[in-house]
């Protein structure tokens, strides 16, 4: 393998990691409160606002059901507004972030809804405010599930980030398309795929391990 090619792969991997890290960070920071809101704003819940809940739920669903490639194209004006360009790694971060928000929000919602209602009841009986219940009970109890949700989000992001390569987004997907497909270099294609698999494996096992560390629900030792 030529040193040039190695350099290309290293650069592409770095670009992918950068896109995933930034989109994952911003996307989950925005998705987290939205997910908490979705899980706590139904009728008779901690912050009852069933109408807003329904509207937010609708927007989340709409975003999630839009195919990612169409999302990328549809928000080009917005991407340009934010980053000043519509191609390249920087530009790709915008649609990746937008796609992450509803994805993570739904996972957060599920993680929180999964918590035993008895714990909310007990906290209410202690005189906790709804905000205290969110921070001291729900988030604490959901930590293992949230860790897995974040892991799943990052894994999906790695896949999406390869897709933005198809529309000039940079990173491993871009490299695979340009060299592997357009220049008939199956070896490059193969390397790209292997690197992606390794990345996904690393993220998944790190996430699993962390989640298990946080999870105190079963006896061990």
């Amino acid at each position: 393998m030529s040193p040039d090619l190695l350099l290309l792969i290293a650069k592409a991997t770095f670009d992918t990691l950068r896109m995933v890290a930034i989109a994952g960070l911003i996307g989950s920071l925005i998705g987290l409160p939205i997910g908490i809101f979705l899980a706590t704003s139904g009728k008779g819940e901690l912050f009852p606002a069933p109408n807003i809940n329904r509207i937010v739920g609708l927007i989340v669903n709409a975003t999630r059901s839009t195919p990612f490639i169409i999302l990328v194209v549809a928000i080009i004006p917005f991407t340009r507004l934010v980053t000043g360009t519509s191609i390249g790694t920087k530009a790709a971060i915008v649609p990746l972030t937008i796609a992450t928000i509803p994805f993570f929000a739904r996972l957060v919602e599920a993680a929180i809804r999964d918590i035993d209602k008895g714990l909310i009841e007990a906290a209410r009986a202690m005189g906790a405010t709804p905000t205290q219940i969110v921070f001291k009970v729900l988030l604490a109890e959901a930590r293992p599930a949230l860790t897995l949700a974040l892991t799943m989000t990052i894994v999906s992001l790695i896949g999406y980030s390869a897709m933005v390569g198809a529309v000039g987004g940079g990173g491993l997907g871009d490299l695979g398309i340009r060299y592997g497909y357009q220049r008939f270099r199956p070896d490059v294609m193969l390397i790209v795929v292997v690197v992606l698999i390794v990345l996904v494996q690393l993220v998944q096992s790190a996430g699993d391990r962390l989640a298990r560390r946080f999870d105190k629900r079963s006896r061990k030792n």
Partner: protein
Amino acid sequence: MNASVPVFDDVTVAFQRVSKRFAASGESGAFTALNNVDLNVGRGSITGIIGRSGAGKSTLIRLVNGLEKPSSGKVLVDGVDVGALDEAGLRNLRRSVGMIFQHFNLLSSHTVFGNVALPLEIAGMDRRAIEARVRPLLDLVGLADKHARYPAELSGGQKQRIGIARALATEPKLLLSDEATSALDPETTQSILELLKRINAELGLTVLLITHEMEVVKAVTSDVAVIDKGEIVERGHTFDVFTHPKHETTRALLSGLPGSKLPDAVARGLKPAPSAGDRAVVRLTFFGATAERPLVSQLIKSVGAEVNIIAGTIDEIGGKPYGSLVVAYAADAETSGRAERFFTENGLVTEVLGYVA
């Protein structure tokens, strides 16, 4: 007045014509869970509320700390109308009312220490003060050595002890218990009940507990109310209600207690009227001092050797000794006459259950 002596005529919780209706939702129609409940919980008492599943027990207890609002009527806690409090007022009240639950409701993500500390963190207490408050509580419930464990590493009884320690953390004057022992085996149940009794005696805490088990009521309560289909059908001192149950629901709940049921073979052959040669089956109930006298040997002496014992139990209810004995003897006029004289002389409460061949 000595503070350690319970003062029962002073009231901690008062229900005044309380009704609770749940509005219709979806397919299920509106439902009246509580109907015109009047009930006082004496300060320093351990008051039990017993009823079948769905009778409205949880609804009733949840009204006390405002987890549920009455549809009509008033719930007063230390004279304060719970239904009239705003959210902030309710939170204040809840910090002075502890609650324990059937399924413990401990945070799996927190250690034993963290769980007991939670209500104090919520109340905004600083780390140092929390530390000083939690340690003695863990000692009180006998789990000081487990402070760094997680709930998943504890047995059911230990979890409930943590639940109790957590409920006591804010030094409440009232403890609510919603089926706190229903998920525990009989032995563990007894040890938790002992703990509740000790807390009641040592801290002067009023305990309001709901249960569907007569055993629990018998073991710890001083007062009891029986609830059926949302209405209080009987109430009084536990001893009186147990020894003279009036309502059929109470009788039905009591019949589950060991020693209170006739053996099946006898129950099947029971007839309402005697024919020649039959034997009378009589239940004797004796309390207090009578329960401690050698009644059986005296009975046999005065009635004749032809007395046999069919069922019996000696027990303690609300701290008072109590006995129930089912005996059978010849139903002829002479023997019956001797028996009745003996019963009257000894102040025994009797009930003829029927006759057997």
